[in-house]
């Protein structure tokens, strides 16, 4: 054989080896797990329990045979509640782990920092957190983006609807004057400003306070001003660190408005254990008592407790569970991970969630794929959160007035 001939044979062999090795990689890739990449704040109870609920859902799906004949792998990265860490997590999930779908989320601030990275990869994203309408404005036109949590203005509208419904159903409850105590940062201020618009038919007075999270923790002056105003409804917008001290200080000065509402992003895990919690109203997407009226919620509760030996205490737990199942069912419906097919399958979502409602995607003010549109009005009663409104998920009658005033 001539040198030319030898070179040609060698080239054929090299090509054949490359084809075989390449095919091997393709086969391996196809047979590998379907990868879901989640980003959550793991030091916070929302992220910690949300990630556990996601693991529970993945375990259930894998135990039932996986998806498309493949196992599901969940990769969770901690964003440490920092935008730069959240953005780096997206890069890591896309480039190193090569995930198929992005899921997770909690803070709007973190998510705003993640959006440039998400736009770079344009993978299908199903996000359960980030309620700020600033996020909505930033994701306009992104057909691969699905948002599950109600936007802030949807939450505000649902509270207006809820309080109106409660007053109509229970004529004893009358709300004409409201006092808003809000933490002085962006979270409290924007909540208060939004509420002034939403509750324009009430006489509203507001005052800021320094949250314990930022070195405050003495609420007595604000509480005294509220006491002087004599509101029908008192609401504080702050953080979990404020929850118990604000109740103690209200009791200290003898402030007992007919409705005492707290609106932190998450409650301390043992808040219900305090005698002062009784009768305090709250906002949320879920309460453990929903398991008494929803079989899906009951299944979720039992499975979560069995797997982790702890009770889910935040609505981000059933939300995380919902997150995985919505994606899994869409993948099963699509029969492929191809992007366009997956988007179409997600658009057809109709998932009976452990939060009570059936999740579907429909347009919101600015985007095409918005999931839930309402929050619930809850109340702490005898150590547990009960649902007061919407009435279809109600688990208890309202305890009114607060402290039996």
């Amino acid at each position, binding site marked *: 054989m001539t040198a030319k001939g030898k070179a040609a044979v060698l080239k054929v062999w090299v090509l054949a080896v490359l084809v075989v090795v390449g095919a091997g990689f393709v086969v391996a890739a196809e047979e590998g797990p379907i990868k879901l990449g989640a980003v959550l704040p793991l*030091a*916070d*109870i929302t992220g*910690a329990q949300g990630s556990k609920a996601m693991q529970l859902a993945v375990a259930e799906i894998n135990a039932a045979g996986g998806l498309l004949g493949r196992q599901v792998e969940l990769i969770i990265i901690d964003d440490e*509640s920092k935008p730069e860490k959240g953005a780096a997590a997206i890069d890591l999930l896309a480039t190193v782990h090569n995930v198929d779908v992005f899921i997770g989320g909690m803070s709007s601030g973190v998510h705003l920092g993640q959006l440039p990275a998400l736009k770079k990869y344009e993978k299908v994203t199903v996000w359960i957190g980030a309620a700020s309408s600033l996020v909505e404005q930033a994701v306009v036109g992104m057909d691969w983006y699905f948002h599950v949590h109600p936007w802030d203005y949807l939450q505000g509208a649902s509270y207006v609807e809820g309080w109106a419904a409660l007053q109509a159903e229970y004529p004893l409850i009358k709300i004409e004057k409201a006092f808003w105590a809000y933490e*002085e940062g962006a979270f409290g201020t924007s909540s208060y400003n939004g509420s002034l618009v939403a509750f324009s038919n009430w006489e509203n007075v507001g*005052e*800021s*306070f*320094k949250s*314990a*999270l*930022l*070195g405050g*923790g*003495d609420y*007595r*002056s*604000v509480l*005294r*001003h509220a006491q002087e105003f004599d509101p029908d409804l008192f609401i504080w917008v702050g*953080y*979990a*660190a*404020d*929850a*118990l*001290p604000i109740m*103690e*200080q209200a*009791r*200290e*000065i*003898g402030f007992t408005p007919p409705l005492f509402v707290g609106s932190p992003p998450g409650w*301390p*895990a*043992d808040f219900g*254990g*305090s*005698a*002062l919690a009784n009768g305090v109203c709250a906002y949320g997407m879920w309460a453990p008592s929903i398991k008494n009226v929803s079989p899906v919620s009951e299944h979720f509760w039992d499975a979560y407790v069995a797997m982790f030996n702890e009770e889910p205490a935040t609505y981000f737990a059933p939300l995380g569970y919902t997150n995985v199942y919505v994606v899994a069912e869409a993948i099963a419906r699509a029969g492929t991970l191809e992007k366009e097919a997956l988007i179409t399958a997600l658009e057809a979502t109709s998932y009976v969630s452990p939060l009570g409602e059936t999740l579907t995607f429909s347009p919101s003010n600015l985007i095409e794929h918005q999931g839930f549109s309402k929050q619930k009005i809850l109340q702490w009663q005898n150590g547990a959160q009960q649902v007061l409104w919407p009435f279809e998920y109600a688990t208890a009658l309202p305890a009114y007035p607060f402290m039996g005033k």
Partner: protein
Amino acid sequence: MTLLRTVPQKRVALLLVSLGIVILMMLWKPYALIEGLQRGGLYALIALPMALILGIVGIINLAHGEFMMLGAYFAYWLGVYFGIDPLVAMIPALAAFAILGSMTYFVTIRRALKAPELNQLLLTFGLAMVGMEFANLMWTSQPLKPHLSYVYSSMALGKLRFGTYAFIYTAAAIVLLVLLLLFLRRTRLGRAALAVGQNPRGARLVGIDIQRTYLLIFGLSIALVGAIGAMFLTRHSVFPSAGSPFTMKSFCLIAMAGMGNLPGVVWGGFALGVAEALVLSFRGYGGWADVVFFAVLVAVIMGRSYRRQTA
């Protein structure tokens, strides 16, 4: 008259001015006075151990608030596992944090005593970060607080209803001040510590063991702030960054009072607490409380500087 002759006129004037302010506020804004003395007591109480370290060891301990935060966690978990009330937990906290403080001194502070001040600051800042991240890893960022019914005890004088428990901080600040002054002025160890704080070289020449004194003062201060953390927990939630803001406030109080002036720290704490409470008593002006805090601080430091120039 004998009393007036023995007490410096400046102090009598200060006392009379303070008394005047108290009477005026009792008539005008009684809540601001009561709550100001309570919150001021907390500021002073937390600042005293820091003042002790700064006055004698000569180090600004930026991890001061983090030691307090760890003390609060210590008390919280003693309550969870052994059912011990945080106020009782102050006793084991004193012992545990005396050991922690001594270990911290041996492992880190001792090696930085002769280093430039910036390095000492960086070292204690590093300790603060370690403390905060340790708490975050161990107990997450979730706030924890025991349920204690006595913290919302109150009393009514006519129409005036106010909380009584928070006076514990006011009382504790005064008691701690008295005990520290007695220790520093009446005991051999305390006098040695004062001598070291004033002139370490001279103290060494007269045979005082400098290292032992530094160790004692640092250990004592950390023990105190750990126990104060347990008391802090009764009315506040604890979370990893709960102590940081109090490091800043404590340092400002010390700067205002002047180095080594423990009574000044307590007076300053009350003054700033009442000033803050007065601002907060006007609806809608709560955001100005911090501004007032730092404005009073700047005014006092500038006033002192002016007096020195004119003296």
